[in-house]
């Protein structure tokens, strides 16, 4: 995908240019001032905050590192543990999401298998039966094995010659992507109960699994459009040269789709880094992440802006750097899969 930036063909009149600069300049100020404020507040002493706003370091007030020392040294592990949690959970879940998402997207965009609707419904029926069985106290191993066995028997026997409408790949893809509309809060109570039963509450793995599940539809949505742009001819000639499916995937498709994979990774990473709701339910002390720490500290240290500013800067620093890269990708239409859908 050639990513040459193009501006609109019409050059603005001088008046138009001035108005444009005024509006954009105003918004730039509105965006940057709070960030500037955040940075200088992190170096202020309490007295410089409580006696009304002070604006310029060295002129208005003498910068101090006291808040940084307190947050990083005095609080030490209380800050570093959530930070490490956020990094580990963010990176791990994003890598896993990308792997699963790329696999599914590739499978759905290159293989043309179709499943009979009747078969899918049959499978669903046995899955529900198995779930009901588990609810009624059946051991889950037995329920799953029984359900699968019954499904295989029914599939091999009665349904072998049954016709009816088929489900295509487009249906599966649409079905996966449609999950993106589901707000986590609508399903968070069952997920909480699930992890509670598994004894995984307040652990990093629980957060990782939950984030992978939550972000997977987004990954599929973003990658689907990208895989379409890879010319099929390349894969065909590799197949003729004797490469098998796995080699084609590893040697040709993945390297070619690297920009799309990077952009998707960054997007998902930002989502995982900032995620609040699921973390609020699934973690408390051990697995606490930065968004939770910031919100919790705001409740207890509300007016101690100097401490809060340091915490927030630590948290948003890494993603601001990512924003610059991401903006290029999105603006050039790399992440626009569903728009044309």
């Amino acid at each position, binding site marked *: 995908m050639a990513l040459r930036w193009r*501006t609109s063909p019409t050059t603005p009149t001088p008046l138009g240019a001035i108005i444009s600069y005024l509006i954009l300049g105003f918004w730039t100020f509105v965006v940057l001032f709070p960030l500037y404020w955040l940075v200088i507040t992190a170096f202020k002493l309490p007295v410089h905050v409580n006696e009304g706003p002070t604006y310029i370091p060295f002129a208005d007030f003498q910068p101090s590192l006291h808040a940084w020392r307190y947050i990083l040294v005095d609080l030490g592990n209380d800050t570093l543990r959530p930070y490490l949690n956020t990094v580990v959970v963010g990176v791990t879940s994003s890598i896993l999401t990308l792997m699963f998402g790329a696999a599914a997207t590739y499978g759905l965009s290159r293989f043309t298998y179709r499943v009979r609707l009747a078969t899918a419904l049959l499978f669903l029926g046995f899955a529900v039966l198995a779930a009901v069985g588990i609810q009624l106290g059946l051991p889950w191993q037995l329920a799953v094995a029984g359900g699968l066995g019954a499904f295989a028997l029914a599939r091999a026997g009665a349904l072998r010659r049954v016709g009816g409408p088929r489900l295509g790949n487009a249906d599966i893809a649409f079905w996966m992507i449609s999950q993106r509309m589901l707000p986590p809060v609508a399903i968070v*109570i069952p997920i909480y109960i699930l992890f509670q039963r598994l004894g995984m509450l307040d652990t990093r793995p629980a957060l990782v699994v939950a984030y992978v599940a939550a972000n997977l539809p987004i990954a599929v949505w973003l990658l689907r459009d990208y895989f379409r742009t890879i010319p099929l001819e390349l894969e065909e000639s590799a197949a003729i040269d004797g490469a098998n499916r796995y080699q084609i995937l590893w040697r040709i498709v993945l390297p070619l789709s690297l920009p799309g994979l990077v952009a998707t990774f960054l997007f998902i990473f930002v989502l995982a880094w900032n995620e609040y709701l699921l973390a609020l339910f699934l973690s408390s002390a051990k697995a606490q992440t930065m968004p939770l720490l910031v919100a919790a500290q705001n409740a207890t240290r509300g007016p101690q802006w100097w401490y809060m500013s340091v915490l927030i800067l630590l948290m948003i620093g890494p993603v601001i750097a990512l924003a610059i890269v991401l903006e290029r990708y999105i603006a050039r239409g790399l992440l626009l899969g569903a728009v044309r859908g």
Partner: protein
Amino acid sequence: MERSIDVVERERMAKMATPTTSNALLLHLRRRLGDWPLFVLLVAPNLLLLAVFTYWPLVYNAYLSLMQWDLISPSKLFVGLENYRFLLEDSEFREVSRNTVVFTVGTVGGTVVLGLLFALLLDQPLRGIALARGVVFAPYVLSGAAVAVFWVNMLNPRFGVVAEVASWLGTVSPDWLNHPRLAMVAVILVYIWKNVGFTTIVYLAGLQRIPKELYEAATVDGAGMLERFRFVTMPQLGPITLFLVVVSTISSFQAFDLIKVLTDGGPVNATTTLLFYIWEQGFVAFNAGRAAAAAVVLFALLAVISLLQVRIGERRVSYD
């Protein structure tokens, strides 16, 4: 739609199929099964994750909505549609619904309209425009919790910057976040501040895709700037606008961290949206059943919106 490479693959395997080697059985198996194992390997983990973390929770949530349960006690009490009846009659729920509508209309309208304006401005060949693009987008990647915290600081009536600016202008800044009406306005404005970067950048990408020839043809036909916008830009951006309205609606329904930190749903219930109500019912009041019922309502609403998108989208002409 796309040519499959299965054909090529199968021809290749047919050539190799002469069973001279010891792995004839394996080859035979591969030919019978084709690429099924790989396909299943690629797609199945995703379907499994979705089943466990989306479908089972949805079903279980619907089941919970028929129960009375405090999340702790071992037994749940079946109450039928009682939770839904409660929602219908609850005056708080009505207020919450109204808040949700106000919040959604305000944030979606604000981000889409402002986003279009910014995109049009940023699409011009002006100096320094790349920097401005980055600045407009930046807040979108920031954590909602963090954004909320520093806006609480900025809006503080005693030592916030907004109060200071108001005093320069000769007025007094109200206590935004504790004012029964202005609290909602403040939450919407902060939400727009954070999210307008996304709509802007998507609109910009849309503008990039409009063929230049359309503008040239319109200019030849004597169309001025406004006419070009009305008859070329707007229709070409139609599908993107629809996409943005739906996506923004869905994400505004999911705004939680911002509201939690800015106002905690208050003062009283002035900024409690449906999503926040679910949280309060479930994990503050420990009414899992009512929370689940409200979640079912929210889900139904989103499903209707998404279906509408698909329906309207089908009728639109794609500009590909």
